[in-house]
């Protein structure tokens, strides 16, 4: 009887872990990411993610945000300068490198950007992925 009970708890438990926990991890990361965005990104990319016209490119509904996670992590770590094309428009401001953010902060802010203002890019960026791209 105890065995049956244990199994009946473990099996739904596995389903719960595999199905819901990653979603919860992502939603918590997005929530933390909003704070990181407000402090470190918003003054150029704006609260609504639309950027500054002709100067700072949008992150909201931006084709650039669909680039691979590795590329996006690289932009935060190394910054960006020189001409860049976003949604068919050229931009030429400078984005400062922000390696002083923690692995978790970078993962969180990118998860926030990839899931806000109409952006919906599947997958979760993890702090481990950020760590792997840091130049030591």
């Amino acid at each position: 009887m105890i065995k049956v009970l244990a199994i009946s708890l473990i099996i739904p438990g596995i389903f719960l872990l595999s199905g819901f926990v990653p979603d919860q991890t992502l939603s918590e990361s997005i929530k933390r990411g909003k704070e990181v965005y407000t402090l470190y990104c918003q003054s150029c990319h704006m609260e609504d993610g639309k950027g500054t016209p002709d100067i700072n490119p949008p992150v909201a509904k931006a084709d650039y945000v669909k680039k691979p996670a590795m590329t996006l992590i690289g932009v935060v770590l190394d910054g960006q300068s020189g001409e860049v094309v976003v949604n068919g428009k050229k931009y030429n401001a400078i984005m400062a490198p922000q390696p002083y953010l923690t692995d978790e902060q970078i993962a969180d802010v990118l998860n926030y950007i990839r899931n806000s203002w109409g952006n919906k890019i599947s997958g979760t960026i993890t702090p481990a992925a950020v760590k792997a791209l840091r130049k030591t």
Partner: protein
Amino acid sequence: MATYNLKINGETKNVDVDPMTPVLWVLREHLNLTGTKYGCGVAACGACTIHLDGAAVRSCQLPVTAIGTKSITTIEGLSANGDHPVQKAWLEHDVAQCGYCQTGQIMSAAALLKTNPNPTEAQIETAMTGNICRCGTYLRIRDAIKSAAKQK
């Protein structure tokens, strides 16, 4: 080096600088407009805020080549006699302590009130998040922006 004709505070200024020179250094070093301050150099503090076609931007991260035909307004050109509603409210509330950040604070506040003449407290805080004040005069800054919004 390259030559640029920049519209700054209603006048056209001619400068010969490297295309990637940040506008902050064009203003301060080449045009002697030192009201705009250098703080962090990485768009994280807001001290170098200017207006580009009315929008608040960080001049330290803005290469001169990106300006094109847009017009620049600095603190020197915000008002003729230092009487922009935000500047008047600044005096009324004695906002400045050391004063280093206030150029950027005033430029950000003026840009906010231009697009949103009656901001809520939350909207003020959101718009001003990128402007850091090491003396911690945030409460007076917020009060001054509220006063300036009423004056308009």
